[in-house]
């Protein structure tokens, strides 16, 4: 069966996406869950261990805190309190911390630090699964055992003000609540006033037990203008005032003879300079984000001298601490352990009792989740500690009060702590349990696709651009049936042997068999292609090889493109190179520009003029007598100025790239450095930002309009105007004739206005394409149609990009224009070379936009442009489009460019599509193998798995692009 390269490439990518999804399904673990479906009850609590006697009290010691105020401040960084900023803006908090009447900890938070998973972690004590991130925006009620439910069941009254995610997670749990939506990031005063306005009246009342306040304003400021914004100081002062108010109110209550109160201030997700949710100041040593926690209670009397750095704890440790502090049972799925210093005022007996309760719960969870729990060191330690606790109790109840007793008690305490820590650790490790079966199936499908692409390279890149797949012969062959049988038996063995819980077991048999048949047929196709290559076409292959080696050796550019692609794949093995992947691409892009520059020089100054072209080129001039294509024949035809423009182009590209690079600092190591983006987003520089945005929009219009029809020109102009007015309405930029008193709206009308133009332009383009295909075989019409589709994409990107990112779009268009005009056409790079260059540029632009391999940098706000409320599908589409706008624009441009260069080679689009598929498959396959090998690596959750999600998403985007390619190629095939 002969199919065209483009169809073949698209098919391969679609299959690959399927394989990656399968792999992801197996890779992201299901969080540890207790087998009991019910929730912990007071009646289920274990007895206090006592040697020799059966019965002892089963009650929990009296609650430590009468009332708890939990104050969550999103994005409050550790250094905002403990750093110099804290001294200036949070004097009261600092005073409390330094006086020693509080406990402060820095809490390590696990990787997905987005709102919903963090709330889940805080209330259930379990470490959120990575999949929870995806569910973040659409949060259903929390079914798991959790602190709020426990509090409510125990008859405590919970009051909540703040982020409405809580209300969705805990419907009907709060006695009183007022939620504010966190979707409109541009507002940072109303969200907090909404919370604070209830505070005075609530604090005066006595009818509540737990008060939860969730402040979002600081986070929104961070989102808008980064952590160096001038707005942060006043916000911190505001937070400090609130804290002071609560604290004084609680102290006065204590004087009135009430029980102890606890004020807990913590960070929902602390943040770094990365302009988005979560991230947080990642300390590289542990690879975990840190969050700050200050426990301030009226009764902590420990006087500490000086001001020490707070000790690190896990964020989940607060759940058991708080639960026991309130006299509630610990929720079942909690993996954290007590923070002992909080209980230092209690008697030794009570402390031991608390530890025992926590240990009991953890050991229960271990029993449920590990088959051979007996061998778990933590579990054993806990058993021993429980025994010694029993004998201690015996001595204690006998009235022994000697030194020996207290020493022994301390020993038991230590035993308990060790056991708890080790159990907690091994439970956290359970998260690393993978569904290897699905992973291997997914991985082998991806690898098969890669092999298929690789072995058909010669055919796919040949002049005919057709691939001959021996599908029918493979399906009718004996090996196919044998393979099917073999795989089925493997499946039966894997899925029936132990009580494994892999994904495939839950599928129906027909579906499983379909997957098996598909897998085997792919394998057979590959085998038969290899067979054909080896036996039938041997002489022919030799001829091809000979022809190839004789007519073109590798030029320096080819070597660079090859080593760059392979080097990038290799670099993925190091976590730092993943975090700093943008550096790799910038570096390669620079070298590419210099190599192109050298090519240009070589073309125009054969023996004539003064340009030292080797300095920039790192490759040795090859000594073999294989000159590349001789350009000199065309040289004379070129006008002089074109030569200079061609010479300037790579240099101008270099300068553009350097400027874009300083626009958005991304990655981890240098993310904190000030960049132009932050400077522009500072509210003091709104005039500059407005000017820059306006200038960029005008230039974008000038660059795009030249190949559009009149109608789309007008539509484009109006659309770009709409983009500006949308940004003005949202409050990002200024309108010159704007009245001062104008309030900030959501800009829905303006954004929808732009959407209409985007759709209009896309429609015109599609119409032109259809006409060129059906009615007249007009190449002109077709390339205009393609360009219109491209300009529609540009308009959409302009709408979704933040205003400070508009220069990225502008430079993208500029580089595309000049490179196409003076370099790619003039130097006659073939389709494969052009495709690789486009791919590299696309990758670099992905990072120029400020993206990184951290989930935190995804600009979720793009998903709300023009929407009144959160609507799932458009929001996801818009966010994905905005994130991958760079690669998409370059891919679109590639289609336009290759189809306009029709006269050179009719197979160009097929070649381009195939190269695109190959370029995506190589890193994806390599990365999947790598992640499988490194699945117990320390940074697997913080570094490698976000990148895996990005790779999957990128493959999906590329598959969509390739299908588009195929459609364009189809048109051509129909026509000729």
């Amino acid at each position, binding site marked *: 069966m002969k199919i065209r390269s483009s169809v073949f490439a698209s098919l391969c990518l679609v299959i690959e996406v399927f394989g990656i999804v399968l792999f992801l399904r197996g890779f992201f673990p299901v969080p540890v869950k207790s087998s009991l479906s019910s929730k912990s009850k007071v009646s289920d609590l274990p007895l206090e261990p006592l040697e020799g006697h059966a019965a002892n009290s089963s009650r929990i010691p009296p609650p430590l805190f009468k009332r708890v105020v939990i104050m969550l401040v999103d994005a409050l960084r550790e250094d905002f309190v403990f750093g110099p900023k804290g001294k200036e803006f949070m004097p009261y908090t600092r005073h409390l911390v330094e006086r020693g009447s509080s406990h402060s900890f820095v809490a390590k938070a696990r990787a997905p630090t987005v709102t919903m998973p963090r709330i889940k972690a805080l209330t259930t004590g379990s470490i959120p699964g990575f999949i929870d991130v995806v569910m973040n925006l659409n949060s259903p009620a929390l079914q798991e055992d959790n602190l709020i439910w426990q509090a409510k069941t125990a008859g405590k009254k919970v009051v909540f003000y703040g982020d409405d995610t809580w209300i969705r997670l805990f419907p009907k749990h709060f006695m009183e609540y007022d939620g504010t939506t966190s979707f409109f990031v541009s507002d940072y005063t109303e969200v907090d006033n909404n919370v604070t306005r209830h505070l005075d009246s609530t604090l005066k009342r006595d009818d509540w037990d737990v008060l939860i306040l969730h402040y979002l304003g600081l986070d929104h400021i961070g989102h808008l203008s980064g952590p160096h914004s001038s707005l942060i100081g006043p916000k911190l002062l505001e937070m400090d005032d609130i804290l002071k108010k609560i604290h004084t109110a609680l102290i006065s209550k204590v004087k009135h003879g009430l029980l102890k109160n606890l004020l807990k201030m913590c960070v929902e997700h602390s943040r770094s300079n990365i302009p988005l949710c979560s991230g947080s100041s990642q300390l590289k040593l542990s690879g975990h984000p840190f969050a700050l926690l200050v426990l301030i209670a009226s009764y902590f009397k420990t006087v500490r001298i000086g001001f020490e750095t707070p000790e690190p704890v896990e964020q989940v440790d607060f759940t058991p601490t708080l639960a026991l502090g309130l006299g509630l049972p610990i929720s079942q799925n909690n993996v954290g352990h007590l923070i002992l210093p909080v209980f230092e005022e209690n008697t030794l007996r009570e402390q031991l009792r608390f530890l025992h309760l926590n240990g009991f719960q953890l050991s229960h969870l271990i029993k449920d989740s590990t088959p051979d729990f007996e061998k778990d060191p933590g579990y054993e330690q806990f058993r021993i500690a429980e025994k010694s606790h029993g004998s201690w109790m015996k001595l204690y109840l006998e009235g022994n009060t000697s030194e020996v007793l207290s020493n022994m008690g301390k020993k038991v305490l230590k035993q308990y702590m060790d056991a708890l820590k080790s159990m907690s650790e091994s439970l956290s490790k359970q998260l690393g349990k993978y569904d290897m079966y699905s992973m291997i199936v997914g991985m082998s499908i991806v690898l098969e696709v890669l092999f298929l692409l690789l072995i058909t390279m010669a055919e796919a890149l040949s002049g005919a651009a057709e691939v001959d797949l021996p599908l029918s012969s493979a399906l009718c062959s004996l090996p196919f049936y044998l393979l099917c049988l073999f795989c089925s038996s493997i499946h039966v063995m894997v899925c029936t042997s132990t009580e494994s819980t892999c994904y495939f077991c839950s599928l129906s048999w027909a579906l499983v068999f379909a997957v098996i048949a598909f897998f085997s047929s792919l394998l057979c196709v590959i085998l038969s292609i290899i067979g054909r290559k080896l036996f039938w076409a041997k002489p022919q292959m030799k001829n091809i090889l000979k022809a190839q080696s004789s007519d073109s050796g590798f030029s320096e550019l080819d070597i660079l493109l090859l080593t760059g692609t392979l080097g990038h794949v290799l670099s993925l093995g190091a976590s730092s190179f993943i975090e700093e992947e943008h550096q790799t691409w910038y570096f390669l892009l620079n070298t590419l520009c210099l190599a192109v520059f050298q090519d240009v020089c070589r073309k125009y100054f054969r023996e004539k003029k*003064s340009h030292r072209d080797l*300095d920039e080129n790192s490759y040795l001039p090859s000594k073999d007598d294989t*000159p590349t294509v001789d350009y000199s024949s065309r040289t004379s035809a070129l006008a002089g100025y074109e030569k200079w423009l061609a010479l300037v182009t790579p240099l101008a590209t270099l300068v553009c790239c350097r400027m874009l690079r300083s626009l958005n600092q991304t990655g981890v190591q240098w993310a904190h450095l000030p960049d132009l983006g932050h400077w522009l987003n500072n509210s003091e520089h709104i005039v500059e930002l407005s000017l820059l945005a306006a200038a960029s929009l005008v230039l974008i219009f000038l660059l795009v309009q030249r190949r559009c029809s009149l109608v789309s020109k007008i539509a484009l102009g109006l659309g770009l105007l709409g983009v500006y007015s949308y940004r003005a309405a949202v409050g990002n930029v200024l309108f010159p004739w704007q009245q001062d008193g104008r309030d900030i709206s959501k800009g829905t009308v303006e954004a929808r206005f732009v959407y209409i133009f985007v759709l209009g332009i896309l429609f015109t383009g599609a119409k032109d394409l259809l006409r060129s295909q059906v009615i007249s075989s007009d190449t002109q019409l077709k390339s205009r149609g393609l360009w219109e589709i491209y300009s529609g994409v540009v308009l959409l990107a302009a709408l979704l990009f933040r205003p400070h990112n508009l220069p990225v779009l502008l430079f993208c268009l500029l580089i595309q224009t000049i490179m196409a005009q003076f370099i790619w056409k003039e130097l006659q790079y073939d389709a494969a070379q052009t495709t690789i260059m486009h791919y590299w540029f696309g990758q670099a632009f992905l990072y120029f936009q400020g993206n990184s391999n951290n989930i935190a940098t995804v600009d979720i706000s793009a998903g709300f442009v023009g929407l009144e409320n959160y609507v799932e599908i458009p929001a996801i589409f818009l966010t994905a489009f905005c994130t991958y706008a760079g690669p998409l624009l370059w891919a679109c441009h590639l289609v336009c460019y290759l189809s306009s260069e029709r006269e050179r080679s009719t197979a160009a689009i097929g070649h381009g599509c195939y190269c695109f598929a190959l370029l995506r498959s190589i890193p994806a396959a390599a990365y999947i193998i790598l992640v499988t090998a490194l699945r117990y690596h320390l940074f697997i959750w913080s570094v490698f798995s976000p990148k895996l999600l990005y790779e999957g998403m990128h493959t999906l985007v590329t598959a969509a692009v390739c299908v588009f390619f195929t459609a364009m190629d189809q048109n051509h095939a129909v026509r000729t």
Partner: protein
Amino acid sequence: MKDIEIKGMISAHTIMAASVLMATVLPLLFVDGFSVYGTHLVWLYSVSGAVAAVNITVYWLLGISPPSKKNTLSYKVSKAFRSCLYFILSCFLFHTVVVLYGAPLLESALETFSFAVLLSTFTTLRCLCILGPNVQAWIRVFSRDGAMSVWDTSLQITTACSMIGAWLGAFPIPLDWDRPWQVWPVSCTLGATFGFLTGLVVAPLWIHWHRKQLTYKSK
């Protein structure tokens, strides 16, 4: 003829490699607290100074520089002046290229410039010594099949090796090992130096292996 030239080249290259080593070791006696990482700039300038001095003396003694038509003093002075100018220009050029590669623009500009000086010493200075301040000749040497003597070939090889060394030297920078040699520009200068040394070793070997294929056009 060729064998003699190769032998000459080997000795010249040995002297240059030795000068790099001496420049690393000798300042230990004179400078307090000298170390390659700690006082990196001192090391850098001592190496580039030593390489420059050795280059100029060796090639002047060997008389490899192209024979000049005029032998007047004024011509020599102008030639020397143009050489200096070219050298400085090349320093600035390298500086620009390094900044384009992502070195900070203002911060640590001195380090960046020193790195550019080192690179120029390894590449441009040798060009100046062997080819003279004659851009035409440079273009000829660095275009394909432009080498006309073993010295040209050696120039090609050492220049390319220094460049590749500096290029490869940038790779460890993003790694988070916090080693002293990851500080900008230490790894790049070390890479360039190792590349240069490799080039010095490789050039005679390569010429020796390929002496059959190498047929130089007469000058």
